[in-house]
């Protein structure tokens, strides 16, 4: 019975999500808003991938922008410099990111706590410096220009409505995929790592392989996000994949609320919208952004989804007490 109810709930959630996306796509006319919604979609993909690693498996990565960048630069180089079809480039980008994640994850994921954070940070910095310094291939710090638009048959994905639907379609597929993984045997094993790695090893979970697999999965999602980003803005530079971007990704996951798929969407939306809103404050933008980050983390360390639910429950309880 519980399983049936759970499936029903998930079905309703998915239907609501699809309706919301279609309504947004049809009703929003303003191209600026559509563009921001598309960016939210790309960031949601990043947050979903990192959330699997951080929220469920409990492994912190401070260098995840590297995979985002690998996805973007692979497709940029293959489709622009070598003139390949972007779809072939997508396969290469995802394959490349998974391969790099395997090579890097093998030794790195043996570390834990701050050491894992520092290891992934170092990896992210090295990848970013490679983008910056290998200028004959990547265009160096001035960036890579002239990335072609995506085409599928007769549909040309321009920056606008069609791209919005493309990105959110991918987000939906990724969401369903994450759900499937989490409700499987693998998902339960993942949560056991989060609660206690030694305990889950004791009951026979091969934690190292599992962590590596989930690292590779989140790298793949990151590189798909990078692919979508590159063909959307058609210009990429190393700054879009630096240390601060990795930190921003971690912040999306934590602010939205770890181990929650809706939390990832909320976190991605907030961190995409916030700089847009703060633009009007001009030079005070950084101060306000930093303050919000600190205040949320000090008062709602469980993230906004959890924090808001707590406040709601608290406010419902307190009137009862007075009665």
């Amino acid at each position, binding site marked *: 019975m519980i399983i049936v109810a759970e499936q029903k709930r998930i079905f309703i959630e998915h239907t609501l999500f699809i309706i919301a996306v279609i309504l947004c796509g049809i009703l929003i006319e303003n191209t600026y808003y559509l563009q921001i919604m598309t960016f939210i979609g790309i960031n949601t993909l990043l947050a979903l991938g990192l959330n699997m690693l*951080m929220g469920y498996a409990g492994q*912190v990565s401070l260098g995840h922008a590297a995979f985002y960048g690998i996805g973007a630069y692979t497709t940029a180089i293959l489709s622009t410099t070598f003139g390949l079809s972007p779809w072939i480039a997508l396969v290469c980008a995802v394959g490349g990111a998974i391969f790099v994640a395997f090579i890097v994850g093998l*030794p*790195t994921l*043996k*570390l*834990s*706590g*701050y*050491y894992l*954070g*520092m*290891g992934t*940070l*170092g*990896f992210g*910095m*090295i990848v970013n*410096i*490679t983008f*910056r*310094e290998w200028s004959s291939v990547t265009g160096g710090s001035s960036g890579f220009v002239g990335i072609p638009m995506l085409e599928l048959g007769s549909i040309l994905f321009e920056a606008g409505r069609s791209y919005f639907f493309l990105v959110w379609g991918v987000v939906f597929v990724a969401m369903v995929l994450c759900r499937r993984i989490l409700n499987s045997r693998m998902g339960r094993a993942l949560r056991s790592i989060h609660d206690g790695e030694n305990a889950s090893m004791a009951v026979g979970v091969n934690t190292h392989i599992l962590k590596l697999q989930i690292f590779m999965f989140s790298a793949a999602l990151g590189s798909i996000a990078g692919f979508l980003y590159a063909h959307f803005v058609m210009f990429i530079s190393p700054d879009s994949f630096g*240390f*601060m971007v990795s*930190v921003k990704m*971690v*912040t999306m996951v*934590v602010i939205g609320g770890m181990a929650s798929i809706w939390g990832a969407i909320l976190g991605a939306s907030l961190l995409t919208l916030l700089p847009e809103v703060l633009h009007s404050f001009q*030079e*005070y*933008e*950084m*101060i*306000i*952004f*930093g*303050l*919000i*980050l*600190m205040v949320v*983390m*000090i008062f709602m*360390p469980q993230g906004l989804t959890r924090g808001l639910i707590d406040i709601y429950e608290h406010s419902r309880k307190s009137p009862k007490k007075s009665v």
Partner: protein
Amino acid sequence: MQEIIQYLFSGITTGSIYAVIAVGLSMLYSSTELINFSHGEFVMLGAMGIVTTWVHLALPLPLAFVLTVAAVAFMGMLFERLAIRTAKKHQPITLVIITVGASILLRGVAMIIWGKDPFSVPPFSSHDSIEIAGAALVPQSVFIVIAAFILAGAIHLFFKQTLTGKAMVACAVNKKAAWLSGIPSETMGVLAFIISTGTGAAAGIFIAPITMSSYDMGTMLGLKGFCAAMIGGLGSLWGAFAGGILLGVLESLGAGLISSGLKDAIAFILLLLILYICPGGLFSAKISKRF
């Protein structure tokens, strides 16, 4: 040969600055188990502080030095009191994001106070450079290296000789046991922040005449400080110091002999190598737990 000596000189100079940054980070980590991602910003505040007090207000150098260090240490205390203390019981990742938020905040404040343009600071001493084996040694470098050693030595003596220092070490070893024997561990935490940000400010003052100082110089310096602290072994004072010098020398040699584009990558390549081969660091006596 002459070139290599020249690279060594500049490597040791920047290395001793990394060393001071690493010592501050490492010390804070061993007494509070916190990695402060805004440490680089306190270094930047030190450099900007000397720009204001010494270059703009034309105060005498020692006074400017003391004023800057005191002001930055005071900000470090405020940071601990307002942000870290209020959120102390939470997971490391929340604390990391709080310090990242603080670093963005401090960078924003510095951008408004000092603007976006970089400043240059004249050298501390106007003596001519000395020539050793064909390589020029600037007196400024000697001054910085000696000052770094004095600073690290002072921290060492503080921990080994004074009661407060010993109490801090006790807190770092076992907080609960220290608390039971009557050491106010909260006060020790604040003190650790004050000393850590104060040494960060000193590092910023040393680096000001070597490079241009601007509001965004902190992040990279902070990250390299981590690398140095990890290379030497997180939590060990002289280990972090040696890690800093080693990092500076290798960076300077790598940039000079191989490629200048490699300069920033060296620190992180070293970091990964250390983490894979001996995560406890090169100079750490005890085998570190990978917790």
